[in-house]
């Protein structure tokens, strides 16, 4: 215990902050691109032609039932065999987008399917145009339904991004790997990095909750266990 020493970790704090910035950038990029995949996927699954439904189904099931790390290796080591060479950063972003896309497709689909069909018909009966029906009738309740699961999924993207250090993509965990290789304070380095992740996730969550209460009002109170 006496050689518990953080000074060399804090000496490298600038590098850690840069690493945290890279992690955030990677996460934001993956979230934006992943949502594009998800919206296309959800559209294909709910209103696309039959063949596209099966394709999206296979994509979603395969991605959700295999490990992220394996998907990363598959794209990083496998695609060059097909003649497509990716840098670690590109492979990391590609894998994160494809992974999030599968999970988010299911979330968005569930949101769209949760809107009762009668409401859409009522909109038609009132003479709303298709775009108006989508914007005024389908979108607000669907967004409300998918918001929390999506926010949770985005947090998982941030947490999962540490895995891309396995192919030495540039982000917080790989920065930590090189710092601990230089200062030999392995545990201390990873402990500090763990807390940086913790802070990022807590800020993320607070932000998502703030946006939720601003847009949809406060959370509904669940029924509580008596005596607590």
């Amino acid at each position, binding site marked *: 215990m006496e050689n518990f020493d953080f000074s060399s970790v804090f000496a490298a704090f600038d590098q850690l902050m840069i690493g945290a910035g890279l992690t955030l950038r990677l996460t934001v990029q993956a979230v934006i691109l992943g949502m594009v995949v998800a919206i296309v996927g959800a559209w294909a699954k709910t209103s696309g032609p039959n063949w596209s439904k099966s394709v999206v189904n296979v994509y979603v099931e395969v991605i959700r*039932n295999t490990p992220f790390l394996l998907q990363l290796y598959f794209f990083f*080591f496998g695609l060059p065999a097909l003649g497509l060479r990716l840098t670690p950063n590109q492979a990391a972003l590609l894998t994160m987008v494809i992974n999030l896309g599968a999970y988010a497709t299911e979330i968005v689909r569930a949101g769209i399917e949760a809107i009762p069909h009668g409401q859409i018909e009522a909109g038609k009966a009132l003479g709303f145009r298709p775009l108006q029906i989508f914007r005024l009738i389908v979108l607000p309740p669907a967004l409300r339904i998918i918001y929390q699961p999506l926010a949770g999924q985005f947090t998982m993207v941030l947490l999962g991004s540490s895995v891309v250090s396995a192919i030495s993509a540039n982000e917080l965990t790989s920065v930590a790997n090189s710092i601990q290789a230089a200062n030999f304070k392995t545990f201390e380095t*990873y402990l500090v990095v*763990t807390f940086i992740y913790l802070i990022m996730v807590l800020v993320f969550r607070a932000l998502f909750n703030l946006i939720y209460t601003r847009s949809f009002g406060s959370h509904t109170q669940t*029924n509580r*266990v008596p005596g*607590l």
Partner: protein
Amino acid sequence: MIRELNVNDFIYMLSAARWTLLLSVLAIVGGGVVGVGILAARLSRLRFVRLIAFGYIQFLQATPLLMQLFLVFFGGTLIGIRFDPWTAALIAFSLHASAFVGDIWYGSVEAVPRAQWEGAYSVALSRPKTFRLVIAPQALRIAIPPTVGFLVQLIKGTSLASIIGFVELVRAGQFINNSTLKPLFVYGFVACVFFVICWPLSKWSQALEARLAKGYAR
């Protein structure tokens, strides 16, 4: 030295699946045991016990699994123990699982209508008896589908143990790929093995959930 991919390589990878499975089973059992403790702490009448359990869950749910694995693996030396990858992985995944199942089970207890507690109290059942005879059986039904769903996450998560040198499916795949340089085949095959393990569990979890929803709609 690059050699051709042969049948023995596939047998080697298939047999490595037993370490993935064994680690997953031990971690979910270990996590379940600790998780019961977490649930009890979350339901404690003492505010600070509840707060500690809440903090524990928050910490493990808001930090990367890979970091948790590293902290256990490299943290042993601080107390004078050098964990081998097996022990470190087992401890880390059990703790990780305990936070998630503890949270899932607490949510399931909370989902049992409050009137069930009040009804049990009004027929003079004590708090422990209320929990055991009235609440737990109902919460169990609610808890099973998400617990199975989490098991799938855990099985996939055990692949991270390959990073600290634990030989399971992904690590076995890396070995074979290093000597054959057939990444598409090797990782594709490993993906198939994971899929065969995880997909039925996912479907089962979804079916249980659908049945539960139907029961409540009645």
